[in-house]
């Protein structure tokens, strides 16, 4: 039991970077970016190939980051300069990356068994593993927070919030969009690189459904901790990623549910659907009851004055 929980926390931390990436596009830029499914595997592929060719693991991970940045920039260019619909630009890149990822690896998957990964020095001690991962993830989170409070970062946030306004103040919204999508996919690719090193292989299908997993983490985190400011929300997203993994681990342990590992994506989709639908329903009923209450008040006070 304990082991499956620590395993869930480890995975949650590694996928937290994916979730932060999805947060940048979905929440900050308001851009549903499906590139993620491809760029996650790109990150894994680049890291795995480089490590298996004897490069230092940290260099391989940085290269994965660069690969993700490039993939995201392509999507951004397709959308802003090519004027292609946002969803479609992401899907196009995702499909293109499938072939590119196989080209990078030279085959559909690369094994990292017996290779020196980022985790090799700390592999044997669970608490060290979690501590190191947590420090790395929070350092990246803080860097992202800091960036989002710089002049450039503010312009990026305003691009998603009110692009007409930031243009009237000289913000180049095209460049901000490209930068945001690029940064997002860079983080996603690091996440893919970490997962490849942790699981000991990279596979061309490893990115399938990542967009939904990222989204689930964002939504869960926001639901638990709320969205006060950027600093708090990125924290919520990291926690959301960990909670998501813990929930999955518990679900698999509940034998009466008879879950198979292939049910993962169905469960994820269900979590996202529920998380998206419940607030809508709740808002609907709240508005209705508020309106009823308020009109009742007004009606009573009108009657009190003896009508109009």
């Amino acid at each position: 039991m304990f082991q499956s929980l620590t395993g869930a926390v480890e995975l949650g931390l590694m996928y937290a970077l994916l979730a932060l990436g999805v947060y940048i596009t979905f929440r900050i830029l308001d851009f549903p970016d499906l590139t993620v499914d491809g760029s996650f595997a790109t990150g894994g592929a680049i890291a795995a190939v480089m490590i298996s060719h004897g490069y230092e693991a940290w260099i391989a991970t940085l290269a994965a980051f660069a690969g993700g940045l490039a993939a995201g920039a392509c999507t951004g260019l397709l959308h802003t300069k090519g004027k292609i619909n946002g969803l479609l630009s992401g899907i196009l890149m995702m499909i293109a990356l499938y072939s590119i990822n196989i080209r990078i690896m030279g085959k559909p998957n690369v094994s990292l068994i017996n290779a020196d990964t980022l985790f090799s020095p700390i592999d044997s001690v669970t608490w060290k593993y979690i501590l190191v991962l947590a420090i790395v993830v929070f350092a990246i989170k803080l860097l992202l927070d800091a960036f989002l409070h710089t002049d450039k970062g503010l312009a990026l946030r305003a691009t998603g919030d009110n692009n007409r306004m930031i243009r009237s103040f000289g913000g180049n919204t095209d460049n901000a969009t490209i930068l945001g999508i690029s940064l997002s996919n860079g983080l996603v690719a690091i996440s893919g690189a970490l997962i490849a090193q942790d699981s000991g292989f990279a596979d061309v299908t490893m990115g399938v459904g990542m967009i939904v997993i990222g989204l689930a983490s964002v939504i869960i985190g926001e639901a638990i901790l709320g969205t006060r400011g950027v600093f708090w929300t990125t924290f919520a997203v990291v926690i959301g990623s960990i909670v998501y993994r813990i929930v999955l681990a518990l679900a698999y342990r509940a034998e009466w549910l008879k879950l198979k590992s292939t049910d993962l994506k169905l469960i994820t989709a269900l979590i996202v659907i529920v998380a998206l639908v419940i607030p809508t329903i709740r808002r609907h009923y709240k508005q209705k009851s508020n309106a009823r209450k308020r009109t009742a008040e007004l009606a009573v006070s009108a009657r009190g004055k003896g009508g109009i």
Partner: protein
Amino acid sequence: MLELNHVSKLFNPGTPDEKIALIDIQLKLNPGDFVTVIGSNGAGKSTLMNIISGVLKPDLGDVKIGGTSISHLPEFQRSRWIGRVFQDPMAGTAPTMTIEENLAMAYRRGKPRGLSWGVSAARRKLFREQLQRLGLGLENRLKAKVGLLSGGERQALSLLMATFTKPDILLLDEHTAALDPARAELITRLTESIVREMKLTTLMVTHNMEQAIRLGNRLIMMDKGRIILDIPENRKRDLTVPQLLAEFERISGHKLADDRVVLG
């Protein structure tokens, strides 16, 4: 300061919906001019604003600021010279960001945006001082999200954001039209004092005749894509609303028709 030479704009050229938005517009604003613009629906007032700010490109003609042609520049590059307040109070500010963050973005109007802190201690002090001028107590709510402000407060903030870095040209596009009368009056007063204090060259579209006469030193009347009347300061001073309407009818041959027109 601002010059429009033979500017024309067609919408949907060559289709059955073809519409002349602006035809051969000649307009020159001298430094410190505060020009109010009135006209009926579809007279081309908003198109004029959009051509100057770069949202639309003229089909013919040239736009110059300070003698330099800016016709080829996209909207975001023209903001170096132009400050703008929109009609919609929601349009001029970013709702999920705080008051100080909004001001920080306005503070970098037309300048490169790098990796320095958007809201530094020094900037925050400046923002607080500037907000005090509005007299709305916003200086005590620097960290409040702008989405929580009322329409009037947001428009006051937009006005401050558009002006406090002293643009060469200030464009006001019916910026009091979406507010209730009391708030509209507040924004009008703020506009007047800010423009006077900073000596901003201003072009203000309004549907409020009384406001058009009271504010500024020049009044322009538009109809069907043309400027049909340009009233200088000495004549404008004694003008009344009925006179203005009569004048419009005399020149254009029809009544001033605008569903939102306020006679004042």
